[in-house]
C-alpha cells in the first residue's frame, strides 16, 4: 500500500470518529474503503476500553478511601447522635465507646438504613492489666458488606456493660462466655450464667490476677504440680 493511501485512511478514520461517516463512504477504491472501516472499528474499540479503565480506577480509589475512613465516618455519625458516649482515645481502625449508652447505640447501629449492622460476628473479652477489662464487638452488615469494631473499657471494680443480647440474639452465648471467663456483668442479659465452667466455680479464669481455688467438691485443684501426689 502506498503512503498516500495510508494517509487517506487515517484522515478518513479521524473524520469518522468525529461523526462524519461520509469521509469513509466516499472513498472510491473498494479495498481502501474496507481497510478504512476496519481501522475505524479498531480505533473505536481501543477508545472504549481506555475510557472504561480510567472510570474503574477512579471508582476503586474512591472505594478504598471510603473503606479506609469508614470506621472514622461511623464514629462521627455516632458522635452526632450520641455525643457523650465516644471515648477520648480513638484509633482509625476501631471505635472506642463508653459503656453507658451502648444498648441505645447498638439498636441505632442495627436499625439505621445506611449502616444496617445486622450481624454481630464476635464478642471478645480482654484483661488489659492495671484493673481494666475490655469487651470488643465485631459488627458486619450483610446488606452493605461493611464492618466495624467497637471496643468498650470497664474497670475491674465495676465491670458493668449493657447487654446487647436483645439486639443481636447471638450475643446471648458470646456474653455468657465473656462473663464466664472475665466476670464482666452484662446488665439486662436474660440468662447470664456460666457457660463452660460449672455453676459453682469460683473466680474468673482468664483475668490476669486469677488464682485457682484449693478444692472443688473435695477434689484437689493443684496450683503447681511439683510435690503434689
Amino acid at each position: 500500500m502506498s503512503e498516500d493511501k495510508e494517509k487517506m485512511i487515517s484522515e478518513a478514520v479521524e473524520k469518522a470518529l468525529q461523526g462524519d461517516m461520509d469521509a469513509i463512504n466516499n472513498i472510491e477504491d473498494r479495498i481502501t474503503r474496507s481497510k478504512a472501516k476496519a481501522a475505524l472499528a479498531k480505533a473505536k474499540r481501543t477508545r472504549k476500553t481506555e475510557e472504561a479503565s480510567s472510570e474503574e480506577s477512579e471508582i476503586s480509589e474512591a472505594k478504598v478511601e471510603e473503606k479506609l475512613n469508614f470506621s472514622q465516618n461511623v464514629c462521627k455519625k455516632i458522635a452526632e447522635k450520641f455525643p457523650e458516649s465516644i471515648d477520648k482515645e480513638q484509633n482509625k481502625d476501631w471505635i472506642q465507646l463508653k459503656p453507658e449508652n451502648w444498648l441505645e447505640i447498638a439498636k441505632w447501629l442495627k436499625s439505621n438504613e445506611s449502616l444496617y449492622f445486622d450481624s454481630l460476628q464476635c464478642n471478645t473479652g480482654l484483661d488489659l492489666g492495671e484493673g481494666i477489662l475490655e469487651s470488643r464487638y465485631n459488627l458486619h452488615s450483610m446488606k452493605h458488606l461493611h464492618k466495624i469494631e467497637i471496643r468498650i473499657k470497664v474497670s475491674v471494680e465495676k465491670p458493668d456493660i449493657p447487654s446487647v443480647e436483645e439486639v443481636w440474639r447471638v450475643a446471648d452465648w458470646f456474653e455468657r462466655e465473656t462473663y464466664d471467663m472475665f466476670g464482666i456483668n452484662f446488665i439486662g442479659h436474660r440468662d447470664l450464667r456460666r457457660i463452660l465452667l460449672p455453676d459453682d466455680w469460683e473466680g474468673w479464669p482468664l483475668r490476669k490476677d486469677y488464682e485457682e481455688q484449693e478444692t472443688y467438691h473435695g477434689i484437689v485443684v493443684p496450683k503447681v504440680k511439683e510435690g503434689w501426689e
Partner: protein
Amino acid sequence: MGILENKFDDNIIVEKLDKLLSWSRSTSPWFFQFGLACCAIEMMAAAASRHDLMRIGIIPRSSPRQADVMIVAGTVTMKMALRVKKLYEQMANPKYVVAMGSCATSGGPYWQHGYHVLKGVDIVIPVDVYVPGCPPRPEALIEGLLRLQEQILEERPLTRKTG
C-alpha cells in the same frame, strides 16, 4: 466384690468354679460406651470393623448398669469428674476401669497449666489399666484390654480373702 465373696473355704470344687467364673468374666468384659475427647475416636475405631473388639468378647453398652468395664477415653475436666464418679458408682460389681490416653492417666498436656482439668482420673475412681498415648492407637487400647483380661483371669472371686 459381690455377694459370693468370702463365703466359701478352699476346696477342689470351689477352686474349679472360681476358675470358671473368672474365665467367663474375662472373656466378656462389656465396656461402657462414652467418650470425652479425641481418644473416643480411637476407641470407636477399635470397636469398628477393622480392629473389631468383639472378636475378644468386648462390646460397647450404652448403660452403666450393663457394663463391666469403663474406658475413660479423654480429658476429664473438673465439671465432668463428678459425673464420671457418679457413672462409676452406677455400674454393677464386678467393675473395672481403663484410663485411656495421657489426659485420663495424668492430665496430659494440661499437667501444669490446666486449672480446669483433673490430673488423672485415678483421683476420683480406682483404675486397673493405664493405656499411654496421645491418643493411643486402637492396637494400644486392645493391648490394654488384653492386660485387663489377664488381670481378671487371675482373680478368684469365691475364695479371695479381702481386708
